[in-house]
Structure formats: C-alpha cells, structure tokens
C-alpha cells in the first residue's frame, strides 16, 4: 500500500462503440503524494481532461484501479456509492474561470462549500474569512465576484477549494485567464497550500511559463503517459 493520495494503476477509458470507439486513456499509472504539485501537460485530445474527470470521479474508468485519499474508489466498479459526498469531503476544485457563484460574495462562496458539508453558517463564514486572509484577499471578503479582478477571483476560488480541508486539489488550467505575474502568484499559493495542508495537487495546464513551478510534470500524448520530468526550479519569467 503506497502513501500516495492520488493513485492510478493501469487506468483505461474509451468513448463510443465499435468502429467509432475512441480510446481516450490507456494504461495510465500515476501517483501524487501529499505535498506534491504535479502538472499534467499535453496537446489537445491527449486525454488531460479525461484524466482529471476520472480523478474527480465524474467519469468511470473502464479498467484499472483508482485510489484517492487512501480509499479504493474504483476497481472493476465504483467502490464508493456517494461520489458527490466523496468529492465534497476529499477533493477541492480550481477552475480556469474561477466559477464563483455570481450571486454570493467572496466570503459566502467560500462558506458555501463548508455548509454543503454540514458546517454551521457562522463557523463556515469564520473559516472563510480566515482563508481569504491567508490568501491575502481578506479585504475583498464582502465583494461580489463581478467586482473582483482575475487574480483576486482565482484566490477566492482557491480558498473555496481549501474550505473543507481536502486531501486532493484538482486544478483545470488555473492560470489560463491570468497574466504571467498573477499566474506565478497562484502557482506559488498552490505550492504553499500543498506543503502546509499536506495535500496532493494535480494541475492540468498548457501554460509553459509555470512548468518550472511543478514538482513533477507528466506529459500525455494519445491517451498515454509519454514522459515524466522534474522541472528545474527557477523564478517565473515575467513577460
């Protein structure tokens, strides 16, 4: 038994039937340990999104083993029945366009994730404010998402992802809508969160400027892992 928080062994996933079948992923074996930030790169159609959806338990694998946060989630069939509750408790999500609910202010966007988990609203708001302070957007706690800058909104989204103390954080192109400087700040935050919260962070990205911020970079091509590398650490090049 490994101590990886994300563990995929021989995972395969295809779509369609007969001649129209497309094999999106084949024999994927990958693990992400606590405190580790792993980047997932590859051209369009390489299977990055499918892999992220499988780890998010949105898609069901065809074969292999999927273990998340020390629990076997899929092996031949779903081993957990309440996948939404599993996501709520164990996984935090960060999106390309922050996906904050436009009708809630920053605090309540963060608090909502907790109230869904049964935390009383008052306590949820307290933690939300603390998280926003931690991510240096505490001054914008009462602002509506439409009034936040791209960088501020992404920090609030990160706070929401952290709200339920997740063991796994999945990020889908989290820096795509940000300029280089803010992209670097967001990645530094993710690294900090991974270390301090002992979380496994898996990031899908095309953004070459942030490759150096990953502990490991996994390259996908045609649904297979083409290469794995450990990028040389260096400061972000500001364009």
């Amino acid at each position: 038994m490994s101590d990886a928080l994300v563990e995929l062994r021989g995972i395969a996933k295809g779509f369609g039937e007969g001649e129209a079948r497309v094999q999106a992923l084949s024999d994927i074996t990958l693990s992400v340990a606590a405190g580790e930030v792993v980047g997932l790169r590859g051209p369009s159609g390489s299977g990055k999104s499918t892999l992220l959806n499988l780890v998010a338990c949105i898609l069901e694998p065809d074969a292999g083993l999927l273990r998340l946060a020390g629990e076997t989630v899929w092996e031949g069939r779903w081993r957990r029945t309440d996948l939404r509750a599993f996501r709520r408790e164990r996984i935090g999500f960060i999106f390309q366009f922050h996906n904050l609910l436009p009708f809630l202010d920053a605090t309540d966007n963060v608090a909502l994730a907790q109230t869904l988990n049964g935390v009383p609203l008052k306590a949820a708001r307290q933690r939300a404010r603390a998280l926003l302070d931690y991510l240096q957007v505490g001054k914008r706690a009462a602002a509506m998402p439409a009034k936040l800058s791209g960088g501020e909104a992404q920090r609030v989204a990160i706070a929401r992802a952290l709200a339920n103390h997740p063991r796994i954080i999945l990020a889908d192109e989290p820096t795509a809508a940000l300029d280089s400087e803010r992209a670097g700040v967001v990645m530094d935050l993710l690294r900090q969160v991974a270390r301090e919260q002992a979380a496994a962070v898996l990031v899908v990205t095309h953004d070459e400027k942030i490759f150096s911020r990953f502990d490991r970079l996994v390259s996908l091509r045609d649904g297979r892992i083409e290469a794995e590398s450990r990028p040389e650490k260096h400061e972000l090049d500001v364009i």
Partner: protein
Amino acid sequence: MNLALRDIRHNLGRFLLTCLGLGLLLGVALAMVGIYRGVVEEALSLARALRADLWVVEAGTRGPFAEASRIPGDVREAVARLPGVLAAGAVTFQTVEARHAGGPGEAEPWTEEALRERAGEAGRQRIGAVLRLQVVGHEPDRPGGPPEILEGRGIGRGRLEMVVDRGAGLRPGAIVEMANIRYRVVGLTHRTVSTGGDPLAWITLRDAQELQFRLAPPAARRAQQGGGGALPQDTVNAVIARVSPHARAEDIAAGIRRWKHFAALTAAEQETVLTRSVVERARRQLGMFTGVLLLVSAVIVALIVYTMTMDKLREIATLKLIGAPDRSIVALIMQQALLLGGTGFAGGTALLLSVKDAFPRRVLLGPEEILGFGLVVFVICLAASLLGVRYALRIEPAQALGG
C-alpha cells in the same frame, strides 16, 4: 444559506420585471375566475332577491327565467290558501330599454316639472340616455318586492314609482321613461341584477302589466276592429310563495304540480335552472377560458423557470462538482419558481382587487376564490418547475470544467 433568495436578490430588477409580467397574466386569469363567479352570483341574485321558497309557473315550462311563462294573476290567491304557505305574490318580469334623466354627474335629478320646462313648447319629448333594465312587477306588501332599500323608500300604494338597483346609476327623484310612460325613482337597492347583468327595477304589478301587456293605441284599435279585443290585463309570469319553516316546499310543489296548467319549482330547483340552463353557456365559456389562461400561465412559468435554470448552467455544474446534493439544486429551482409565482400572484391579486369595481359586470372575489386560485398557482409553479428541475439534474458536473 438560501441560494434561491441570494440569486433573486442579485438579479432583483429582472426578477421583479418577470413577476410584473406574470402578475398581469395571473391577474387576468383571476379576473376570469371572479367574472365566472360573478355570472353565477348574478344569475342567482334575481331569484334570491325575491326570497321565494316556491315558484308557480305555466305548465310545461321552467319559467319565468328559462322560458316564457304566463299564468292568470288570480292563481296567487289559490297558492296563498295552500297549507304551509305564509304569503304569495304575483310577479312579472320584462327586459326594457328605458331612457332616464338624473344619472351620475348631474347635481340634481330632473323633476317632471323641470323636464316639462325643458321641453318647452315642443311638449313631451324623449329624455336622457338609454338604460337596459329588468323590470319586476310586484304587489306591494306581498312577496316579490325589492330586498333591502339602501337609499330612499320602497314603493307605496302610489303608481308610477320605481325602486332600482344602484348599478343603474340613478338616484332617488330621477325620472325613467319606459314605453312612453314616466316613472319616478323612489328608492335604491344594491347588487340586484338580472342573469344578463342588467340592473333590476321594481314597479307595481299594475304598472308592469300595463307595460308588458298593453297594446299601443293603433294596435289596440286594430285588435278591436278585428273582434279580438285587448288581452286580459291580469296576466302574470309567475306566482312566488314563502313557505312556513314547518312545511316542506317540495311537498307543496308536488301538490301544485297536480293542478292543471301549472308547474311548480322550489327555490333550489329554480337556482339549478338558472345556473345549469340560463347561464350555462356563459359559465362554460368563462370556465374554459379560465382553464386556457391557467394553462398558458403554467407554460409561461415553466418557460421562465427553464430559462432561469439554463442561465445557471455553469453555476449548477459547479455546485454539483463541489459536491452539492441534488436536493440543494432542486430546492434552488423550486423555491425560485414558487417565489416567482407567489410574487406574481400577490401583485396580480392586489391589482385586480383595486380595479375590480370598475368592471361593468360583477367580479366576485372572496377569500375562498383568492385562496383557491393561490393554491392552483402553487400547484402550477411546482409542476412548471419540474421542467427546470429535469434540466438541472441532467447537467453534468464536468460542464463546470473547461472554458
């Protein structure tokens, strides 16, 4: 944290505008309910105004409202002598196109003298505006007279006097002309109309018989030359009776039915005739139109809720992805649908209640109708929200990912 309310507060202007549109539609649908109830109530108001327990009419008819009925006036005495009958009165009914002076907006009602003065040398001339009335001829102090007098007095022994419903827009002292005969309004009643919505006017039986059966002078001359003579004057449309609380109207009616040439209806049978026969088509027409309006309202609420749900596709996908249970999403949509319907219903009802008295015919809206309609709106909103709920439950969490 109530997501439905927070979303509404965020888009308050749009929500209120939507409610305004829906409120107007629900107001129209509620107005149809009120008009429907008003038609039924008005159909019964004439029969109820006369407070008759028993109606004696011509044999083979269901008169006098459903079809023509003519019986001799002296039947009243035979009916009055029946055991269990407290009082009986002969009545006539006639729809008349009258002319009047002294309507609303005039400082003082016109008097006969003033009219004569105004006519001057031209002598008698037709006066005022046209007014449709349902004229009830009755015998003073016997059943058939006007119910409660709101203003003025009842008809005394004097002739050419009239008590009329306030809806006619006349005041005591006003002059009404029917078939070239002028009557003076001496009293007003309230909410007494015919099945067609025309205000009721009471005059004495003698006046009514003259009005209904008297031939115009040329016609009378022609009839006399032909050897026929004028019709007997003591003809009435029905005899109504009040029955002792210790007697059964059904039993007395059964006894009268055994008489030759006469039929009898109890008050309940008369009301059935009025609602099931006289206003049946109008009732069904209004009922069907109300049904169509409710169906249209349901479709519109469903489309609004569906569109509101479609607008929140990414938000719902995000909620699912971060682990919100389906019940939270269903509650969001259903609560919004109910708030939309509730606000629209409240607005539509308030609007209608403020303007309902301006309608030419009665719009009857009591707490029963309003609560019943509110319940229908509640059910419509719940049912209509199912379309949005179905759409929301089909949204994949994966739709929150990507650009």
